[in-house]
């Protein structure tokens, strides 16, 4: 059972989503404003945050940035408009995925579960690539001596890419494997997550060594 912190200002929608997500087996705590949400987040760290972007006072983007600064708890944002401004802003603020209102609870549940899954089907081993060390059993990553904390999505992306170094993965393929989206996934999720991953594991994110871009196709791990 996952504990969800739902930050949504409309009381009826908040209650409706609480009812529906509880049926899917989650424990849902709620907050009406960004400030209250952050208080509750700090009081007890949830498994995941579902965050409405349009909030009175502190808006969803700011809340998302604060949460991201304080840990690796995944965030799924609820956007009312689904236009580029909301999506890009939310992803830059560090959200792992987004759902456009009116969202079906089934879809939201599937996204929550996908984002929370830290593992992919990989053999138990410790892989070392130059300074990067990936332990697929304890799901820990270190660069040199320093441990790196990754969100579940970042971890899955890294595990998927490093499974077969040198192999090129298209964005749609990654969306289906890591985010478990259907064939129409938003490839900006991948690009955004790759940037965050690079910022954590690359010496110079502008000249990536581990996660490389293959222009026009997608990404590959190495060759290192």
């Amino acid at each position, binding site marked *: 059972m996952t504990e969800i912190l739902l930050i949504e200002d*409309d009381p*009826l*929608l908040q*209650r*409706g*989503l609480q*009812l*529906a997500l509880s*049926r899917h087996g989650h424990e849902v705590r709620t907050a009406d404003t960004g400030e209250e949400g952050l208080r509750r987040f700090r009081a007890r760290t949830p498994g995941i945050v579902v965050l409405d972007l349009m909030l009175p006072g502190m808006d969803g983007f700011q809340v998302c940035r604060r949460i991201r600064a304080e840990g690796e708890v995944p965030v799924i944002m609820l956007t*009312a*408009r689904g*236009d*580029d401004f909301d999506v890009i802003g939310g992803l830059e603020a560090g959200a792992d995925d987004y759902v456009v*209102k*009116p*969202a*079906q*609870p*089934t879809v939201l549940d599937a996204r929550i579960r996908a984002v929370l899954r830290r593992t992919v089907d990989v053999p138990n081993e410790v892989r070392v690539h130059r300074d990067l060390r990936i332990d697929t059993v304890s799901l820990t990553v270190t660069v040199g001596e320093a441990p790196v904390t990754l969100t579940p999505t970042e971890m899955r992306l890294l595990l998927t890419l490093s499974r077969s170094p040198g192999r090129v993965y298209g*964005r749609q393929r990654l969306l289906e494997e890591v985010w478990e989206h*259907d*064939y*129409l996934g938003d*490839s900006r999720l991948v690009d955004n997550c790759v940037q965050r991953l690079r910022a954590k594991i690359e010496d110079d994110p502008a000249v990536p060594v581990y996660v490389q871009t293959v222009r*026009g196709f997608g990404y590959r791990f190495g060759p290192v």
Partner: protein
Amino acid sequence: MGRWWPRGLRPRLLAGFALVTVLGSLAATWAITESAGEALVASNQRRISETVSGQIGAVTHEVSHPPDQAALDRVRDSVGPDTLVVFEDLRSVDGARADLITDELREAVREGDRVVTQRVVDVDRPWLLVGAPVMITDPDGERAPSGIEVYTVRDLSAVQEEVDALVRAAAAAGAAVLVLAALLALVTARGVLRPVRELRDTARRLAAGDLDARTEPQGVDELAELTVTINEMAESVQGSMATMERMRADARRFAADVSHELRTPLSTLTAVTEVLAASTEDMAQDARESAGMAITETRRLVRMVEDLMEVSRFDAGSVRLREEEVDMVSAVRDTLRARNRLDRVELHAPQEVPVRVDRRRLDVIVANLVGNALRHGEPPVRVGVFADRTHVNLVVTDNGPGLAEHVVPHVFDRFFKADSARTRTPGSGLGLAIALENARLHDGDLTAGNGDDGGARFVLRLPRAPGQTAPGRERGIQE
């Protein structure tokens, strides 16, 4: 207006000026030369008559009565060479041109007692004939005709030449005036036509949609009044256009606002109807049916609001293409598979057609066309993909009755329903309008018509890379 009359305003003005000038100068020349010539001739005639009378008077007292041949010759000599003197049957020696003297003149002289003149033309030269009776004074003091008649012929060529010179001078003056008048006409035409031309240019710009076009009125004439009127007209058109544009923008914003406001309650409805749907087993029959309807209608509402928002985004111009390299054929197959349509649709396509498109928008178009064919047409519904070098065509046909002729121009209209009796179709009524907007966003097009076998036929034509299609010879697989 006849064909001989020039059509342009400038040639018409010029022709009018020229005509007036020519007629005027002709009339003036004719009047001047006629009266001046007449006066010249008359004064000459008078002078000659007086001279002849004087000469006759000078010799009269020397002539005995009745005169003999010698006397007649003497009179003749004193008057001049071209002279004839007659008394009853006696005639003086003939002068050189005495043959010109007419019987008419002689009659007039014989009957009267005064000098008679007559103008004649012989061999292109004008002559003046003068005839005078010689008067004698009776012993009792009465003056009476002596019966001697003197006729003389004088050449008028010199006078005629003077008149001719006069005509020539008048004609030259007329020609000069004509040239001057033409120049004047040009200047006037330019002065009148320039504001007219400016007005025309302004009217053209207005017609072309440039509602800021104005002409500065000059002077206080009719043209200036017309200019002011046209400016006022443009002003008022501009005003109404601005009002209409504002109203349309308001309507668009209203639609966007309404659909946006509907999202939150719809989200709640979507959430709770799903809870309802999962617990219908425990409900009574009527409650279960009601729950089912609430669920169905909520989904329909969601679809309509989403379509409405999409249309609002197109109206606001806030849509952006997110192009990716996509295989058109797999994209179409994905769309059909995701909506469980693969087994209801015949797909005819080559192996692979790489294109640059926005996947989501292509999905919307294909789903709309296929959904439309399945809903309104009859099976089999066929989807064909045909590519050439620059474009890819997606053709969706069904086996139904096809589109009625009056329907074809409106299938892409918003909320257009081909059959007004069947208003409750599952769609929002915006699907094809959105599909068309999406096609155009790709620099492509979407057209509707009927196939050879009568079913409806929709053709989506997309450039394989929007924005950079070079027009060129098309080759490859054709329809």
